[in-house]
């Protein structure tokens, strides 16, 4: 995978999430996905330390079910619109398994249109992301995604959209 291919993949993923196509996005992940949004900077073992998100496949599926299908995602009523800007893409040489580690920076703007709360303003979240992508039938799947928010250890509002 070269940088242009990595960018194509990340842009496609970003647009999927911005458009709320969560089932498509879930299909882009491996069964053994590790999806991690840490809450501290020192990479504490996420099994022994709480995170903002630390999902395996079933937990991620439940999260997506709630967002996309349950009809009861109160803190997403009305639902957020997002715009993701992906940049600073770097691709590490492929591992022996064929998996590739990709780094990028993410700027995510979130807004809840149609909110009765007239003071609702767009919010901006910056993050560094690390992916491990696995070759899958001519395409790639996300085996690992870590989103390290700039303000990970600061006071955060409810964030129930998928990062």
């Amino acid at each position, binding site marked *: 995978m070269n940088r242009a291919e990595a960018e194509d993949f990340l842009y496609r993923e970003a647009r999927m999430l911005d458009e709320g196509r969560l089932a498509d996005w879930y299909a882009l992940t491996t069964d053994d996905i590790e999806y991690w949004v840490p809450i501290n900077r020192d990479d504490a073992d996420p099994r022994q*330390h709480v995170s903002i998100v630390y999902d395996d496949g079933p937990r991620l599926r439940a999260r997506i079910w709630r967002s996309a299908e349950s009809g009861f995602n*109160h803190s997403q009523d009305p639902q957020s619109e997002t715009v993701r800007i992906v940049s600073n893409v770097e691709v590490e040489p492929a591992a022996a398994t064929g998996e590739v580690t990709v780094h990028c920076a993410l700027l995510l703007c979130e807004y809840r249109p149609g909110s009765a*709360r007239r003071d609702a303003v767009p919010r901006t979240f910056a993050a560094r992301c690390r992916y491990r992508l696995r070759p899958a039938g001519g395409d790639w799947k996300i085996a690992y995604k870590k989103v390290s928010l700039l303000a990970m250890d600061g006071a955060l509002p409810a964030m129930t959209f998928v990062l």
Partner: protein
Amino acid sequence: MIDIDELVQPERGRVNMRVYVDEDIFREELRRIFYTTWVYVAHESELRQPGDYKTTYIGLVPVIVSRDAGGTVHVLVNRCSHRGATVCQHESGNAKSFRCEYHAWTYALDGGLIGISRQSGYAPEEVAEFNAGLQAVARVASYRGLIFASFAADGTSLEEHLGGARPYLDEWSDLSPTGSVVLEGGTWKHTYNGNWKLQVEGSNEGYHPEFLHRMSSAMRNKAGSGAGHYPWAESDARGLDLGNGHSIMEFPDNRVPQAPDYVALLERAHGKERAARALNGSWRMAIFPNLAISQANLRIIRPLAVDRTEVWQQHVALPGVPPAVNIGRVRGDEFFYGPSGAGAPDDLEMFERIQEGARSVSNAELDPWIWFNRGLRGETRGSNGERVAHTTSEVEQRAVYRAWYALMNAGASKSSIAERR
């Protein structure tokens, strides 16, 4: 003019929404509640070594909680006695002293002023003018590792203040065979646009989970870790008003399966009876005015303004237990809580919706009352005089406003509140 009887009527279980939006009431709350009563500041596991410190707040007052070389814990106002700058900038750490970086005045771990730069430029009479040292909060006391501070030099002891909450704090500490839990494993920090009392009331509110959180048990089932649906209304879950604003919701019938090796460890350490008490069911307790505790986490509620609040939720780990026990606790806690959890974000959303609704009290023609009267007439008294009712009865929320009413009325006539404004 603030008339407390027009704001909170405990005997009817109703509250005027002005208590969420009125800046004058907020100032009075700081003075009569946060700057008077016992406020939680730290857990001893955060201050193990001499020189360890953490910063936190009592109301709007920034404070440093420090352990000095002799092991004594001090709660000091984080404010240089010279020009008022904060002298400590970090959430936690270890220090030999605290130095104001503006003019390099230096303070010891007990707050004493130990260094004035270029002191020869001061006449002794000039030095005598200012308060030498960081101001210490008048009283500091701890119970089972929980450190509280009070700006009031006199008043009830911490033990008296905690009262009926103490047996539960004993159980909480007994969850570890060492007899002491530790605040390790991470801290979530939230802010919401709403009054601080919304989180105090909302920390053990037994009427809402069946509705607001009904999806979280469905999600748990989908994620393959399902304990199924907890039948809130049909259960034996009780709410208790423990006095002084403290309350608990407890689920004696909600027996969480525990690993046999963990149970054996606890029984060896504490004896069968104490171990059984610690492991019997689950509960969530609110300690008025700024603390909530469950078996897996501790929540600190910090008012920022009348309509803005910050909440720190620290994970609680158990020393001396098999690693799988703590891993299970982390995963369980994380499922529901945090900014992206399956439950907590919905609570924050409700707090913000309530704050939005409360703006309506600016129109004095509208009905300002909200209701906490569910099951008020069904309250009974427990063996220690505590008020007991089903957890869905809002008895826990009435506890908050009974204490609020008493504290806001204490020590001053209504007219004196009006005069000061």
